[in-house]
């Protein structure tokens, strides 16, 4: 079988630069342009795992930029080069920046065991690695060979007080200086036994950072004009002390060096996670929360971005060249399969309405309107289900109305807004087994603005498309029934993985199950009062303050709730929206990840939420669901 390109992690270093650029969605460059001064300031990029942080950083590395420029002559990839040009990263055929990419890892934390020397050694290791990564990046920018061509580089700077990096040195000398430091730290980290341990070099200042910000680089005696940009990835792996120190050093650097820092949301303090937006703009020029940025841009830009990702990946598959992804999945009910069932559903609803209070004279005009409705079988069935919801609502509002108060058609039209139709479609799918989770728009919504989530779902759909093509079933788009079945499997897989995603995994699972149960209960009330449905809960700002500010002095239950909420937000299982206003009060709304909405059979739009106090939320942590809220 052709290898499924959706399974390839595009940002992974194992993926070569050419493949990376061929699968890069140009719309993502828009994010690079968000900060006011992106190439001379400090920018933090944060997201849940799979949000696309590393992909953004990798785009700015020399190898990727070279490919983006060279592939720019190809119509299929031109958008990336154009977007980079607009962002001031490239200029026609040359890169104006060279990204120095430095990832962090959990092993840095072992340095904390060194006691008073730990910060010195940490500084030394970070400095050494900045120097090493800089040399690699500069050679890559000029397409030279590492380490053979190191001697052709010279770096000159004005050392800050206490710095040990030489004022002027060739690349090979710098490489040796930095390698020795790195070696000495590895010796320390790899130490076993009880013999006296080797000593590691420590530094009093973050030499590497100041050096990169200040150094003038020459290649064969010619000044290097393009500017470096420091790309620090995965800062969530640092210990609390290291994270605090490094953030402090980065924010204190008052030099025009572009620094992009990517980290998972989990790197943030729990209080900042539960209070998103508070820290933004305080110390840094810019903080970008990827999922939130995409959500704010709206369905259009997000949809275009995801479509680019899907199309570029699909075209990498054997035998799929020049075909786009979305035309390969159906957006419509197949008439031969569904019309009969939909008409039967319509008739069943009509009978139900007439047999109940809908048969009263008051609704005669509405019923006549529904009967006259033209359109597809699905549209007609949805119209009838919407009518039923409206009658329930009207009855609840006008208990004492008389039959002769006949409602006219304009009132029906005024009330049958899109959200009622959405709710009606959802009700219809639940009652009559019609697919609901399918098609381009809903697939985009199901991503919850997270690239990995979208790629995982699309990858499973694509697997079936590839299988069908291998079995020579022609180019028929993937049916909506199969789409829903596949997406349900993805949702189940994601759900089953929750206990393994975090140290609070089991508590998160219990909590989310109760959230889903509450949302189901509110969504499927007969009058659909929060149409199209409830997909989240909200806590008041006072309760949020209680959790984040005074949590340390609170009960174990309050701390456990704070932990669970913070972990769910960090992993994008709950999507926070700060300061929603309702009836004069301000709320922190926490929506379920859209894939969990599928799990619970909920709608995919935002807007429907119910307020909850802290106490019942704490109770949700401890009690498993008694009803089993899962869908299907």
């Amino acid at each position, binding site marked *: 079988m052709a290898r499924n390109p959706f399974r390839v992690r595009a940002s992974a270093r194992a993926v070569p630069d050419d493949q990376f650029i061929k699968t890069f969605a140009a719309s993502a460059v828009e994010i690079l342009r968000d900060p006011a001064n992106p190439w001379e300031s400090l920018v933090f990029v944060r997201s849940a795992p799979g949000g696309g942080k590393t992909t953004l950083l990798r785009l700015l590395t020399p190898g990727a930029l070279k490919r983006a420029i060279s592939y720019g002559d190809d119509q299929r990839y031109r958008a990336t080069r154009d977007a980079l040009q607009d962002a001031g990263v490239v200029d026609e055929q040359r890169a104006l920046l060279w990204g120095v990419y430095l990832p962090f*890892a959990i092993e840095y934390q072992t340095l904390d065991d060194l006691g008073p020397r730990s910060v010195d050694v940490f500084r030394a290791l970070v400095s050494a690695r900045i120097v090493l990564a800089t040399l690699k990046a500069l050679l890559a920018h000029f397409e030279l060979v590492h380490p053979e061509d190191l001697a052709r580089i010279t770096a000159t700077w004005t050392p800050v007080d206490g710095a040990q990096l030489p004022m002027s040195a060739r690349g090979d000398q710098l490489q040796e200086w930095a390698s020795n430091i790195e070696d000495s730290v590895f010796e320390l980290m790899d130490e*076993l036994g009880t013999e006296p341990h080797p000593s590691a070099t420590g530094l009093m200042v973050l030499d590497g950072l100041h050096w990169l910000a200040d150094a003038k680089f020459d290649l064969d005696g010619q000044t290097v004009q393009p500017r470096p940009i420091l790309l620090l990835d995965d800062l969530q792996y640092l210990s609390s002390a290291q994270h605090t120190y490094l953030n402090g050093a980065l924010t204190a650097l008052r030099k025009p060096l572009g620094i992009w820092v990517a980290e998972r949301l989990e790197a943030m303090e729990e209080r900042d996670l539960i209070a998103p937006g508070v820290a933004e703009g305080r110390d840094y020029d810019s903080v970008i929360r990827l999922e939130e940025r995409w959500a704010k841009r709206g369905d259009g830009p997000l949809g275009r971005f995801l479509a680019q990702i899907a199309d570029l990946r699909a075209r990498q598959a054997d035998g799929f060249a020049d075909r786009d992804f979305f035309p390969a999945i159906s957006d419509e009910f197949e008439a031969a399969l569904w019309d009969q069932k939909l008409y039967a559903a319509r008739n069943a609803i009509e009978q139900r309405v007439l047999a109940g209070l809908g048969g009263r004279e008051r609704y005669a005009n509405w019923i006549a309107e529904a009967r006259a409705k033209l359109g597809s079988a699905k549209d007609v069935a949805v119209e009838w289900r919407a009518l039923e919801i409206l009658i329930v609502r009207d009855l609840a509002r006008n208990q004492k109305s008389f039959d002769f108060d006949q409602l006219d058609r304009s009132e029906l039209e005024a009330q049958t807004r899109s959200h009622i139709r959405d709710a009606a479609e959802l009700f219809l799918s639940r009652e009559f087994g019609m697919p609901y989770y399918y098609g381009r728009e809903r697939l985009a919504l199901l991503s919850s603005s997270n690239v990995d989530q979208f790629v995982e779902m699309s990858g499973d759909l694509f697997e079936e498309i590839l299988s069908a093509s291998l079995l020579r079933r022609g180019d028929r788009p993937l049916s909506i029934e199969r789409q829903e079945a596949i997406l349900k499997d993805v949702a189940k897989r994601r759900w089953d993985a929750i206990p393994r995603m975090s140290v609070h995994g089991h508590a998160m699972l219990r909590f989310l199950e109760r959230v889903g149960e509450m949302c189901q209960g509110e969504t499927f009330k007969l009058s659909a009062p929060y149409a199209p449905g409830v997909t989240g809960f909200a806590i008041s700002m006072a309760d949020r303050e209680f959790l984040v500010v005074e949590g340390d002095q609170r009960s174990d239950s309050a701390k456990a709730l704070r932990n669970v909420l913070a972990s769910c937000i960090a992993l994008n299982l709950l999507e926070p929206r700060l300061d929603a206003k309702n009836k004069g009060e301000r709320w922190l709304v926490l929506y379920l990840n859209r894939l969990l909405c599928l799990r619970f059979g909920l709608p995919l739009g935002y807007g429907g939420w119910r307020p909850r106090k802290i106490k019942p939320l704490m109770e949700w942590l401890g009690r498993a669901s008694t009803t089993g809220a899962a869908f299907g």
Partner: protein
Amino acid sequence: MLWCDGEFGRRWREHLGTRSRDVLIIAGLGFDSRAVSVSQELVGCGGYGKRDLWLLCYDNGQQTTAGQRQTVANNAAEFQKLFAAPRTLTRLPIDMRTDRARSATCQNTKAAVSRPQELWTYDDVVVDVSALPRMISLMTLAQLLTIFDERKDAGQCAPNLHVVAAESAAEDFGTAQNSLDTDVTLLTGFSGRLDSEALQNPKVWVPILGEAQDIRLQRIFDRLQPDQICPVVPFPTRDPRRGDRIIESHQRILFDEFDVEPRNILYASEYNPFEAYREIFMTIDRYRDALVELGDCRVFVSPLSSKLLSVSGLLACYDHKCQKGGKFDVGIPYVEVTSYGPSNGNPHGERTLTSMWLTGEWEA
């Protein structure tokens, strides 16, 4: 030397019966139903000399179920009874998490077992890995091997070092819904210089496969970004279809996502951990030889299979670490369990007792 099944009791009785021997057992206190059984078996083998216990009391900071707490209490009582005076029981606490919920297993295990002056008072040190989390058992062994080798290098005698286990595939792979750490941890001493910015030589990954390891594989792959992957599959095995099932269940991740060459798959005997050791050691050796021209290589072995196959992987890495040269390095990346869900394994399933004598008198 390897003593399995029926040989286990007989050979230990012979070993302990030849002369008076002071024996230290290092075991774990957890909710594994096998925690005490090997100690009972060993103590039941008789012989003269001290019989003491270092009980590794690990804590991952997670809530446990009432059933799990009860099993721990039962195990603690059994250990207390078994090592009542004149025997001694020393509890060694190990915090597995920092206050930010990151792994501290390696550092704290290494510190807990680094008591050389006490170790030298014994003839035999027996590490029972049956109820120890993987990183604790491997860290204990790596540290003891190093301490013992340091002593031998100084021209002094070190105790015999044994590894024992009561293995049960049904129990080991029957636990569902465990929470895994989001981070990949490298065993202390075996970083493989993974994150080196100075090194650019090839990385070879040797995951020793067991059942249901998709998430671990994905996380370790993401972290390593290996240039070459050589999965190790247990074969021959007691259940002849086990190897096939393991490959089948990891088909998507191995072949679709990681692009593993089927010819790179290695087979390691489930019956004989020393044979598995040789297979892994030789594989690493071949890569070392082949990649000298590319600036050596870094090899990473992930112990994702049975406890004893994991020990085989550790031994292969340890021996290569001792013969380190050039830019070659060796690492052991793993993803720890952070909390255990309810077990759906069979606590009464068939168990195989195995004893590996790693270092000591037989080398003379």
